[in-house]
């Protein structure tokens, strides 16, 4: 037997990974364990690595217990719960030396499970469950709860917390509550009797999750749409954005249905495709409703023609792109940030679009609201560039708050009275010299009637093929993008460095970057950090880039799309920007960032943009 991983310093700081078969109900067991740790006051992150499949393919769930509250995944695995014979071989390989492997010992141990430097713990899970429960499906489901019981014993999880969670889940179904409690106890007691519990790696109560919640980004974004007052949502189902509309619909059914009449203050339209979905959003927004569509990369590709119309005809729209791995169908259940350029310049002709980059579930909520304000203020499509990691994984984040004083910014919309006071209404005349013109809604008054078109138009809204008239409008649209930079969120800037060496990043890289900065600081390498929250880039972005001399651009795509956008849209010298890229499809860990920066500094001044090796 190899020795245990050295004891006290790994309490509340380790990774447990579950290897399962998808469609067997393992998700509820895994989230039960994660939620228990969270309720014990210990920060956690959970990452679900699932296949694009309904049943039968391998799936993993990774829980990082992180007393320091890191948000990124860790690339190490301390404890592997190997429940999938098909993936034993690779799962065993992944465990860190001195770590633990838990497997179902009902059947003889596979030779694949041999490894001298780890602790292999067998529990006859199938046997335990088969002896105590009936029904094939039932046994499959409860075997998961049984291993949760084993883990509870090994990690010293608080049984009262687990019990409360089970009651919350199955309180209304006493039969289910009973079988789940019994299965959990089976695993727990077996582990207590036959294994040395707890492991040196275990969980102890802390008080670091008070004021926090566990929520996924899609749910938070859907909730944000409800709070922002969105009334029309149109979509076509696509992974990983589907749960955003599910959340919106669920919240609307709770908050937007008249108790007396059953009338609904919302419309969710499942469109025939993404082209229709964005068309519906434009129709609704043109008609004065706050409207949005959630989608992913392939959907954005389809929407391009309409996005150009919205840009040119100046129709508000909110588009959530929950990014997944491309190109083409790519890997639908893996994460990436590879739609940055696609969204920034979507559609043919000269177009540029406003982008928001949430870094976590909490920002999905607030940026959803912000997106509607921006779309209506600027009369243009606004993209919220989330990703699968943010959208579908549970994130520990501060409790969401709402300011009841909030009033939506509906932008420049003329009322009937305001129209009456005008000599004549022209749709695209820049009265305020901020490049944003006034619009009217159908039904207001015939004086405000105008013709919305994607064909060449002059500032009066009339059709034109006259170069001067056409360019006049196109140039104003360019100025409107300058105005947009005044409205979008400023970057988040973190000091700590010498003001010369810095990291620039976006979105879900944030956790990995922050952890890398901490690791580097311990190695006496001080680095500044700027997290960009929006495009167009603000003056603060420009200033920060100008003042730093060596800048690492961290992003999750192959082609350094953020770096490309920075070189196109700011004055920054291209040679100052060095890429650290991760495009494996798995969420980033801090390792490639730390390794790359250390290596680069060692071989200074020859810094080059070689992609770092992604985890696995």
């Amino acid at each position, binding site marked *: 037997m190899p020795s245990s991983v050295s004891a006290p310093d790994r309490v509340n700081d380790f990774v447990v990974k579950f290897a399962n078969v998808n469609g067997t109900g393992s998700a509820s067991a895994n989230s039960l364990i994660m939620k228990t740790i969270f*309720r014990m006051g210990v920060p956690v992150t959970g990452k679900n690595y699932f296949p694009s499949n309904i049943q039968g393919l391998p799936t993993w769930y990774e829980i990082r217990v992180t007393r320091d509250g890191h948000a990124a995944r860790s690339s190490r695995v301390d404890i592997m719960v190997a429940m999938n014979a098909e993936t034993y071989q690779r799962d065993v390989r992944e465990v860190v030396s001195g770590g633990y492997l838990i497997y179902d010992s009902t059947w003889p141990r596979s030779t694949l499970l041999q490894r001298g430097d780890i602790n292999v713990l067998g529990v006859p899970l199938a046997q335990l469950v088969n002896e105590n429960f009936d029904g094939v499906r039932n046994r499959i489901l409860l075997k998961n709860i049984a291993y949760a019981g084993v883990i509870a014993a090994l990690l010293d999880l608080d049984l009262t917390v687990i019990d409360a969670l089970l009651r919350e889940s199955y309180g209304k179904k006493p039969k289910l509550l009973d079988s789940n409690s019994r299965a959990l106890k089976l695993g727990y007691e077996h582990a207590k009797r036959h294994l040395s519990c707890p492991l040196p790696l275990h969980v102890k109560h802390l008080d670091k999750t008070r004021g926090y*919640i*566990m*929520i996924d980004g899609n749910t938070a974004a859907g909730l944000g749409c*409800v*709070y*922002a*007052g969105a*009334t*029309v949502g*149109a979509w076509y189902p696509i992974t990983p954005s589907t749960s955003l509309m599910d959340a919106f619909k669920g919240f609307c059914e709770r*908050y*937007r249905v008249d108790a007396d009449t*059953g*009338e609904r*203050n*919302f*419309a969710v*339209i499942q*469109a*025939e*495709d993404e*082209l*229709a*979905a964005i*068309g*519906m959003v*434009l*129709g*609704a*927004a*043109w*008609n*004065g*409703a706050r*409207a949005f569509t959630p989608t992913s990369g392939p959907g954005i590709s389809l929407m391009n*023609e*309409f996005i150009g119309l919205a840009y040119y005809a100046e129709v508000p729209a909110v588009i959530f792109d929950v990014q997944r791995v491309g190109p083409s169908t790519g890997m639908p259940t893996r994460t990436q940030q590879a739609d940055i350029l696609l969204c920034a310049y979507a559609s043919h002709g000269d177009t540029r679009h406003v982008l928001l980059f949430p870094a976590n579930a909490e920002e999905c909520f607030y940026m959803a609201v912000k997106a509607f304000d921006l779309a209506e203020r600027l009369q243009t499509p606004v993209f919220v560039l989330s990703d699968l990691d943010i959208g579908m994984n549970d994130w520990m984040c501060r409790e969401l*708050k*709402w300011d*009841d004083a*909030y*009033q*939506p910014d509906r932008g420049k919309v003329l009322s009937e009275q305001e129209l009456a006071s005008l000599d004549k209404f022209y749709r695209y005349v820049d009265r305020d010299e901020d490049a944003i013109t006034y619009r*009217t*809604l*159908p*039904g*207001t*008054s*015939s*004086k405000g*009637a*105008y*013709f*919305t*078109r*994607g*064909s060449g138009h002059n500032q009066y809204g009339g*059709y034109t093929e006259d170069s001067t008239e056409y360019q006049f409008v196109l140039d104003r649209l360019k100025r409107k993008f300058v105005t947009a930079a005044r409205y979008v969120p400023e970057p988040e800037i973190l000091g700590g460095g010498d003001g010369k060496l810095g990291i620039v990043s976006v979105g879900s890289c944030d956790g990995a970057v922050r952890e890398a900065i901490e690791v580097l600081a311990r190695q006496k390498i001080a680095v500044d950090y700027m997290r960009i929250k929006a495009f167009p880039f603000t003056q603060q972005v420009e200033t920060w880039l100008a003042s730093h001399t060596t800048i690492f651009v961290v992003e999750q795509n192959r082609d350094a799309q953020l770096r490309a956008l920075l070189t196109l849209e700011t004055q920054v010298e291209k040679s100052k920007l060095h890429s650290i890229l991760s495009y494996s499809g798995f969420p980033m860990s801090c390792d490639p960032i730390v390794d790359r920066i250390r290596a680069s500094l060692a071989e200074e001044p020859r810094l080059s943009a070689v992609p770092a090796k992604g985890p696995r």
Partner: protein
Amino acid sequence: MSFINKPKVAHPSLPKNALGLTRRQYEGSMSTLCAGCGHDSITAAIIEACWELDMRPEQLVKLSGIGCSSKTTAYFVSGSHGFNAVHGRMPSIASGANAANRELTYIGISGDGDSLSIGMGQLVHAIRRNVSMLYLIENNGVYGLTKGQFSASADIGSQAKRGEVNRSPPIDPVLLALSLGATFVARSFSGDKAQLVPLIKAGLRHNGFALIDVLSPCVTFNDHEGSTKSYTFTREHYHAAMEADFVAPQQSISVDYPLGESTEVQLHDGSRVILRKLDANYDPTDRGAAYAYIEGKLKHNEYVTGLIHINESSSTEFHTVNRTSQTPLNRVPFERLTPGSAALEKLMARYR
């Protein structure tokens, strides 16, 4: 096209409708279509229908896609908002607009290319969704702006201007709509204003998706001998199965209809459509029979016109299915849309 802009001032003796508006006030900008284009006759019929319906211009929303037909929304009711969408995608704009404000009246103008090729998917799904709107196809069997290619509605054997003969079977929008369960399906001819105007009025007042396929010859690319969509061919082959009269809610019936030959259908706003059957065996409320009748006539190159099918009692209209609030969604006050801080605080317990 006409080359003279009409003066804006109308002669005081012009007849006015109940809103005190003349027909001139339902006109739009000058048409840029070819002189003699069937589409311009349809535009005139729409203007007449809106005037007769006492439609407030701001209550009407005009939508279109791309093509000759889609240009025409600029040529009527300039006091209405218009939206010229991208090619074939007008139905989605209409669906979204209608979702946001159920109180306005929506008219979509499309063509055979816009509806039956590039926009087929959206048309089909707007019918399925039963979005309340009048969807008018100006059908000429040919692509005009790109100079004379066959469209998907071109008949087998029809000859193009340059001599090419079409060998692919046509997609007939009327049969398509019937097969999908559309609740208002009509066909007419741009040269028959007397038939077209009441159809447009009834379509605008129908509670649900109303499709009117209007045969509208293209004088430039499809009006020659050998074409089955020319004025001459259409006049010789169209066959009115029934004539529809539209009777507004408060209006009394002034014509005596022979007993047994007319059917009355009440629309949801109280107006009525009186159908005078020219073929005694025809029943426009029987969808299956209507389909068989139309298909049988088509085999002999005969286009049945009139209100082919109507089902005013359907409950599949979009807002009915959605149970949308009677207050249009774009006017529901923000306070009723946002649940507020207390609700959020309560909700957070679910995620702790």
